[in-house]
C-alpha cells in the first residue's frame, strides 16, 4: 500500500519535472542563441513578488493563481529591463542586475511580511525559493503540463518566424514580419516556461534550467530544430533524475539536485560532443600537430638532399632537429611509414615514396 502511494507521488513528481524540463529546455534554446541567457535569471527572480502578491490578494494557493502572479511579475520585470536599456544609458547587464535583485528583495519583504502574519495559511510559499518537488500535487502537475503544452504549441506554430528572429531579425523586418511583436511573444513564452518550474526548482536556480540544457544541446548539433529537441530531452532527463534522487534521499533539496544533474549533462557535452567537444578537439589537435611535424621533417630532409647532392651518407637527426626541433621521434615514425630509411647509426635519407610525398 505504501509502495503504491510512493510510486504515485514519484510518478507525479517525475512527470512534473519532465514537463518543466522539456518546456524550459526547448525555449531556452532561443534565449541562449540570442545571448539572453541571463534574462531567464532576471525573470525567475522577478517572479517572486508576483507569487507573494497573488497570494496576498486572493488568499489562495491554487497553482494557477500563483503561476499567474509569477508570470505577470516576470513579464513586468522584462519590460522594465527593456525600458531601462532603451531610455537610459544604463547597460543591459546592469538593468538585469537591478531588476533581478530589487524584485527579489521586494519578494522577500512580502514573504516575510506574510510569514509574520498570525494565520498559518501561508505555509509552503517559501518553497518557491529553492523548489520542492515532493510537495507537487496532481493539480500542480496538470497546471504545469497544460501551460507547458500551450507554450510549446505556440512555439511550434510560429517556429519559422522565431527562427528568423533568432538568426536575422533585420531580414525578418525587411520581409514585413512584426519582429518586435515576435520578440515580445518569445519573451512571454520564456516567462511561461520559467514560472512553471518555479515550484519545483525555485526562483534562485531556475535560470540554470533555461541555460544549461540549451548550452549542452548546442554542442551536439548546429541545427536549431534538433537543438531544441535535444535541449528538451536533456531538460526532461535532468528533471526526472534530479527529482527522483531528491525524493528518494533524505535532505537533498530538489532544485540544487536538478541543477547538478543538468550541469553534469553540460560537462559531458562540453567534453565529449562530436566535432565541438573538448576531448575530440584535443585529439584532433594532437593528430594535426604530429602530422605537421612529420611533414616538416620530411620537407627539411628533402631540402637538405637537394642542396647537398654530393652527400650520400645521409643526414643526421641533430641537423634536422636544428631545422624544426625534436626530429628523432618523427624520423622513426617516418621510417615506420617507409618514407625515410636509416643509412647508419644516425644518418637518414628519403626513400622513393618519401621523395614523392615531399615534392607534392
Amino acid at each position, binding site marked *: 500500500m505504501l509502495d503504491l502511494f510512493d510510486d504515485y507521488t514519484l510518478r507525479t513528481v517525475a512527470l512534473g519535472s519532465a514537463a518543466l524540463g522539456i518546456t524550459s529546455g526547448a525555449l531556452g534554446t532561443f534565449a*541562449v542563441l540570442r*545571448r*539572453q*541567457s*541571463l534574462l*531567464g*535569471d532576471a525573470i525567475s*527572480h522577478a517572479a517572486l513578488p508576483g507569487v507573494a502578491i497573488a497570494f496576498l490578494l486572493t488568499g489562495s494557493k491554487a497553482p494557477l493563481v500563483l503561476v499567474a502572479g509569477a508570470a505577470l511579475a516576470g513579464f513586468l520585470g522584462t519590460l522594465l529591463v527593456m525600458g*531601462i536599456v532603451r*531610455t*537610459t*544609458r*544604463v*547597460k543591459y*547587464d*546592469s*538593468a*538585469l*542586475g*537591478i531588476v*533581478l*535583485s*530589487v*524584485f*527579489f*528583495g*521586494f*519578494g*522577500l*519583504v*512580502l*514573504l*516575510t*511580511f506574510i510569514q*509574520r502574519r498570525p494565520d498559518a495559511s501561508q505555509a509552503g510559499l*517559501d518553497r518557491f*525559493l*529553492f523548489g520542492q518537488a515532493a510537495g507537487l500535487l496532481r493539480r500542480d502537475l496538470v497546471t504545469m503540463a497544460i501551460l507547458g503544452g500551450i507554450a510549446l504549441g505556440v512555439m511550434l506554430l510560429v517556429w519559422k518566424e522565431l527562427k528568423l528572429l533568432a538568426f536575422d531579425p533585420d531580414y525578418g523586418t525587411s520581409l514585413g514580419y512584426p519582429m518586435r511583436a515576435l520578440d515580445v511573444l518569445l519573451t512571454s513564452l520564456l516567462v511561461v516556461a520559467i514560472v512553471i518550474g518555479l515550484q519545483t526548482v525555485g526562483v*534562485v*536556480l531556475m*535560470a*540554470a534550467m*533555461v*541555460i*544549461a540544457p*540549451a*548550452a549542452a544541446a*548546442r*554542442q551536439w548539433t548546429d541545427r536549431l530544430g534538433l537543438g531544441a529537441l535535444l535541449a528538451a530531452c536533456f531538460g526532461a532527463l535532468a528533471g526526472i533524475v534530479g527529482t527522483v534522487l531528491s525524493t528518494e534521499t533524505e*535532505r*537533498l*533539496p530538489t532544485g*540544487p*539536485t536538478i*541543477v*547538478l544533474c543538468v*550541469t553534469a549533462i553540460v560537462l559531458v557535452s*562540453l567534453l565529449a560532443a562530436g566535432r*565541438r567537444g*573538448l576531448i575530440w578537439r584535443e585529439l584532433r589537435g594532437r593528430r594535426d600537430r604530429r602530422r605537421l611535424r612529420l611533414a616538416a621533417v620530411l620537407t627539411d630532409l628533402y631540402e637538405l638532399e637537394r642542396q647537398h647532392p654530393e652527400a650520400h651518407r645521409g643526414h643526421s637527426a641533430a641537423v634536422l632537429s636544428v631545422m624544426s626541433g625534436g626530429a628523432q621521434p618523427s624520423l622513426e615514425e617516418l621510417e615506420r611509414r617507409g618514407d625515410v630509411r636509416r643509412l647508419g647509426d644516425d644518418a637518414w635519407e628519403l626513400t622513393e615514396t618519401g621523395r614523392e610525398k615531399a615534392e607534392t
Partner: protein
Amino acid sequence: MTSGQIEIQLIAVVVAVACALPGTFLVLRRLSLVSDAISHSILLGIVLGFFVVGSVNSPLLLVGAALVGLATVVFVQLLQRTGLVKEDAAIGLVFPALFSIGVILISRYADGVHLDIDAVLLGELAFAPFDRIEFWGWDWGPTALVVMSVILAINIGAIAIFWKELKLSTFDPALAVALGFTPALVQYALMGLVSLTAVGAFDAVGSILVVALMIAPPAAAYLLTDSLPRLLLLAAAIGAASALAGYWLAYALDASIAGAMASMTGVAFLLAWLFAPGRGLLAAARRRARQKLEFAQTMLAIHLANHEGLPEAEEESRIDHLDRHLRWPPEFAQRIVRLAHRRGLVEADAGRLTLTQAGRELAADALAR
C-alpha cells in the same frame, strides 16, 4: 532608538557603502552580472571554509570564500575561452552549479549547526548586534560592523591607490595596454574586492541583495553625473540612504531588513530614472514637449514669411485658417499663436497675424540653416 537599532543601521550603511564602491566599477565595465555570479558561488566557499575552520566568523573563512568567488570568475573565463559557450551562458552555467553544491552541502551536513540556508541566502541583519567581538576585555561592537568596516577601509584604500589604473582600464582598456598597464591584473584585483565585499556582506544581507547594493545605487548615480569621483560619492550616498530607508520600511512592516533595503535601492533607481535632471524620463519628456512648441512657432514664422507681401497673405495669415494651412488642430494653433505673440514674433490684428522683425529674422534664420 535603542542602541541595537542604531547598530543595525550603522551596519546597513557600512555594508551599502562598501558594496557601492566596487559596484560602481562593475556597472561602468558592464560586468554587473559578475556580482550575481560571485555572490552566489561564495556560498560554496563559506560552506567549505566552515567545514575546515569550524566557525562562521573566522577571518580565514572570509578569505577562503573570497577565493572561491574569484575562482568563479576564472571558471567563467575558462569556459568562455573554449569558444563553446558565450559569456552570458558561461556565467549562467557556473554559478548555479557552485551554488547548488553549496546548498546541498549545507542541507546534508551543516543544517541547523551554524549555517542555515535561509539566513545565508537572505541574511538576517536583525540578529547582527547579538554577535559581538570582545577582545582584551573590550567590546568592539557587533562582528558584522567590525568586519564590514575593515572591508570598507580596504575598498577605499584599494580604489585610492589604484585610482589611475582603475580609471584608465575602465574607460580605455586599449590605451591602458598601450601605456604598459595590465588591465587583466586590475580586473582581477577588482574582482577580488567584489568577492571580499560580497563575502562580508553575505552574512548581513544575503547573497542576492548584495547584487542590489552593488548595482542599483551606482546605476542610479550614473544617471545623475558624468564625473567618476562624484559617481562614487553619489553611489555611496544613494546606497546609504536606501539602507536607512530600507531599515525603517522593514521596521514598519516587520519584514526582512535586507529585502527592504534592496527594494529601496530599486526605488532610488526608479526616482533617478524618472527625475534625473537632463537624463530622466521626465526631463526628456519636457524637452520633447518644449522642442515641439518651439518648432511649431518657427513653422508659423516661416509660414507667415512665405506669404508676406503676396496677394494671398490676407487669407493665409488669418488665425482661424491656420488649422487648414499648417494642419494644426485649432486649440494647438491658438496656443502657438499665443506663445509666438508672447515671444514677440507676431502681432495679431483683427484675427490676422503679421510678423515682427524678430519673427522675420527667426524665419530667415531657420530657412538658412
